[in-house]
């Protein structure tokens, strides 16, 4: 099905066609129509922001911040340059959705960034692409060339007199560069580490200029909203959770992959789409929103619908929509050791609690996993976590604590067993 108000696939619809990434496929199904209309009618920025607000589009990168509200923070009468930045630094373990947009639907992202650039009065836009994905970087570059040749980018776009251009910036793979201000530092050629806020990017962003940073999927949703209206987008999902969303399902399912479903869809349906849990095994736990999100038990997760509010109520986060499914073969201590190592390795080292604390957490979990745990370790992990959370410059500290606290909370027995018996409770 095409880009169509009746199709809930907002970002992944091109995958139903032979050449999903081509400009021809995109324009044949109404691509760039929204931009053309806006430029022809000189739609006021306030009207566009109003549509985005109505749509209840919330940031798809993990934080779920209302996009329309974020856009409204950009200073209006500002005399200097402004920028729009797309965050495709998709480094969160479990997340692999944005790369598919670059690979299969790059033009919708380009159109989204153009509309954002127009709305926010930006001079140019940058797409920061994760350092470990290359094919996607090429695909996006190729799409930019196509769009430029067709007059969608550069000077006097579609004869409107408006100039705007987009550039790709390939990162080097550091997870921390997905944090928006570290991302800005990295584009500027500096060491990728977060800035303290305030000032926020809307007032002091890229090169010190007002900047809006949105996730890839967020920006790619904009053309749909402008084409069919904010209300239609809202109705795809549920109140305060507008639209559809890509879910990256990984782990012990039969058909791992990306699935775009309406927000508010029961988790059980997504699990079915992914082919269900491996035969002979039971669902044990799910991390619903990327590795930073607290883990939920099978029962809690099966009671959830896939939207920001439902999962928050269950004690976790929808996050980036990376659903990590674990069946009963998983040793939760081993799983946590792997996650803790990731945050220890990816901490930028700038601020004390995260630099020192993530290593401490990892080393304790590592000890437990290797049969050298002590009874006091579990409370110690929670205590250290409390000293990290909320005391750091950026959210990586909290992201590192989320798994530790939730694993210990929901699977404490398994940890205690490990400490006491110096081996795994799960036989494998």
């Amino acid at each position, binding site marked *: 099905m095409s880009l169509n108000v009746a199709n809930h696939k907002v970002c992944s619809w091109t995958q139903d066609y032979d050449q999903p990434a081509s400009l021809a496929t995109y324009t044949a199904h109404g691509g760039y129509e929204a931009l053309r209309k806006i430029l022809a009618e000189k739609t006021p920025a306030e009207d566009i922001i109003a549509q985005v607000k109505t749509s209840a589009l919330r940031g798809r990168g993990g934080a779920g911040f209302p996009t329309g509200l974020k856009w409204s923070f950009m200073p209006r009468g500002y005399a200097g340059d402004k920028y729009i930045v797309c965050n495709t630094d998709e480094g969160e373990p479990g997340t692999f959705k944005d790369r598919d947009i670059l690979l299969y639907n790059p033009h919708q992202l380009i159109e989204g960034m153009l509309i954002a650039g127009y709305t926010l009065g930006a001079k140019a836009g940058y797409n920061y692409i994760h350092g470990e994905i290359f094919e996607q970087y090429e695909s996006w570059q190729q799409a930019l060339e196509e769009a430029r040749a067709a007059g969608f980018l550069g000077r006097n776009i579609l004869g409107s007199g408006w100039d705007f251009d987009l550039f790709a910036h390939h990162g080097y793979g550091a997870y921390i560069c997905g944090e928006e201000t570290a991302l800005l530092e990295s584009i500027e050629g500096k060491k990728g580490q977060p800035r*303290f806020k305030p000032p926020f990017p809307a007032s002091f962003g890229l090169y010190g200029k007002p900047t809006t940073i949105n996730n890839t999927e967020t920006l790619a949703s904009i053309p749909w909203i402008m084409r069919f209206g904010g209300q239609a987008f809202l109705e795809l999902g549920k109140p305060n959770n507008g639209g559809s969303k890509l879910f990256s399902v990984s782990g012990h399912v039969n058909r791992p992959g990306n699935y775009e479903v309406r927000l508010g869809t029961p988790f059980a349906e997504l699990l079915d789409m992914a082919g269900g849990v491996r035969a002979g095994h039971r669902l044990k736990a799910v991390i619903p929103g990327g590795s930073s999100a607290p883990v939920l038990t099978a029962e809690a997760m099966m009671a959830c619908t896939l939207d920001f509010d439902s999962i928050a109520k269950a004690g976790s986060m929808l996050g980036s929509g990376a659903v990590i499914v674990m069946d009963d073969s998983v040793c939760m201590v081993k799983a946590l050791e792997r996650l803790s190592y990731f945050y*220890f390795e990816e901490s930028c080292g700038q601020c004390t609690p995260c630099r020192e604390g993530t290593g401490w957490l990892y080393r304790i979990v590592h000890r437990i996993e290797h049969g050298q745990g002590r009874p006091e370790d579990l409370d110690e992990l929670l205590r250290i976590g409390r000293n990290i959370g909320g005391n750091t410059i950026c959210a990586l500290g909290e992201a590192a604590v989320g798994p530790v606290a939730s694993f210990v909370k929901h699977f404490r027995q398994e940890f205690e067993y490990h400490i006491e018996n110096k081996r795994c409770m799960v036989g494998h």
Partner: protein
Amino acid sequence: MPLIEIDGQQLEVAAGSTVMDAAQRAGIYIPHFCYHKKLSIAANCRMCLVEVEKAPKPLPACATPVTDGMQVSTRSAKAITAQKGVMEFLLINHPLDCPICDQGGECQLQDLAVGYGESASRYQEPKRVVKDKDLGPLISTDMTRCIHCSRCVRFGQEIAGLMELGMPGRGEHTEVMPFLETQVSHELSGNVIDLCPVGALTSKPFRFSARPWELSRRRAVSPHDGLGANLALHVMQNRVLRATPVDNEAINECWLADRDRFSYQALTAEDRLTRPLVREGERWIEVDWRKALAQAAGALKVIRETHGAEAIGFLTSPQQTVEEHYLFARLAQGLGCENLDHRIDQADCPNLPGAPWLGMSIAELGELDRVLLIGSTLRKEQPLIAQRLRQAVKRGAQLNVVHAADDDLLCKVAHKLITRPSGLARALAEIARALAEAGRDLGAAAAAVAAVAVSDAARAIAASLLSGERKAVLLGAVARQHPHRTDLHRLAQAIAAASGASLGMLVDSADAVGAAVVGCLPGPRGLGAAAMVAQPRKAYVLLGIEPYLDAQDAAGMRRALQASELVIALSAFKGAAQHYAHVILPVAAFAETDGAFVNMEGRVQDFRAAVKPAGEARPAWKVLRVLGNLLDLDGFDYDTAEAVRRAALPEAEASVRARLDNSPAAGELRLPAAADGLERLGETPIYQGDMLARRAPALQATRDSENAKLCWARGDLIERLGLTEGQPVRIVQEGGESVMKLGRDDRLADGVVRVAGAHPLSSKLGPRYGAARLEKM
């Protein structure tokens, strides 16, 4: 202004200030490590977390702007929990080596750990070890102690202007290190020792020599440049073991140049003079003071009686105290001698109407909008003045440069004219002419520059000087030492007057202003320093100088002294004195005498001796006093340095202010012609400026000192002369020659060879800015 409440105290604070600023105003201490008043905010240590009402998380006081009605608790349970949590993290990987750490006893981490740490660590895992780094001869490293506050890195970026330290690596692997295994070479690098809140960066010369609590701190004033940086000398058992800065916003802020910090090492140099020496034939005999002084006075009397007082020359260093300068002048005058000068490194020693000075306060330098810097190797002359100008440029000032080398000032230079030393006057004439073309009145200088063709760069500099509010035209040490000094001065004055700028001299010696104020200058019929070399005297009295190094024309000075009948040297160090002197009187060095310096802005800063003089050495003012008595001169009966100072400056600083005047010598401007052929650029290297710096082993081991040993030429010149970089080359000047290794520096002006003055390797060469030849060995 926002009204806020901190720990129940209400106060109004300026909009835009941070919670940390406000707390300091209220006298409330918030623990911190990365925050430093002179550096940008990093907010990375997290030690200053405080509770702010309505904020969900604790906020860093250093980075949180105040808002009206804000309520802050720095000691609430939430704040203390956060602070203690951060302290625990800081300590888990910090070594417990306080007993062998030089920072122990003055360590911010140690101090705060008492308040915020636990008595035992809960950390049971292996600790981190970090490889130490070689940062050169001044800074010692124990990198395992580093807490990653990034102060040292920010200092390099923001204050020094050169990022020699960085923090590569991520997470636990983050390490402070110099790039590509190079060392740290900046002339302000020692400040990172003070900035480091732990014992990661400590003083290498001081390493393991004392504990801080064993040291008594005595205030002093640095004797090395015209700034008069305030410092504390740390003394144990009558030995100065280190120097640290004392905050003075008006002068050195909280910084010290490495020269100020490490030159104390010279106090125990091997060639310290500890007993008076007199020459008998070819032998030197140690004698007591009575005999030495009697011999000195007697010999001076004989010279005066046989050849007249005009046969004597009095030369002093500009780094002596104002009391010593005063008594030295009185001694010469008392003997009826007018040959008196402190400008030993100048080729042109004019009679000036007053004492040259900065023309403004030091602090005002940082507020300038437009600057024309003439003939100054500023970073190496006065590192902290360069720093002030760097801050001005960061704020948007335009710095324009006229010099013989395009040295990196580590800040943006708006426009520049780089020309050989003999072309500096012409370059200034172009700027003056450009101002005239823009309709400005050049006064008496107009005629001399009327025919000068104006280059684009000169026009750009003139345009720069015609814009902006606060402006200054500043003459540096090269301009001062230059044979065209008077003409450069007149041109600079014309440019300053025509552009509405203030004229200033970057006075580069501790008491040059004081020496001029108290009259250490030739009388109306007397000879200046250069003339005393060109027209040798029968006798010389030298105070605090090493003539073969300090003189403008080392070879000429050597000839003059060797031909004389009597040289009386008052010096703290032996140096080469036994080659030329007849009586050597050991005097107290810096830190061993009471006194005062008058700095470049005319500020009188007095100080007390921090230690007793070495051996039998006596403060020079006391030696001069006795000499005066022995020569039956009036007015030499002073009991204290203060009494001398009261006589020298009866109205204290007002006496100085009354004499400050930057007018050039009377007379017409003549535009000197630029020379052909190679010219020497013979600045005084940063660590060769005075007896102390020359004898500080740590300073002599720096890259700056290594650079001073080379003869520098541009690549095209090296090629043209068929020379080889890195090989020895013979430098030939009229009156002397020398062999040095050849270095390549493409920043030099065409036709320039840079051969340092005041250096043992060049002490047989002639004038510092004279013609020179390079010959293949």
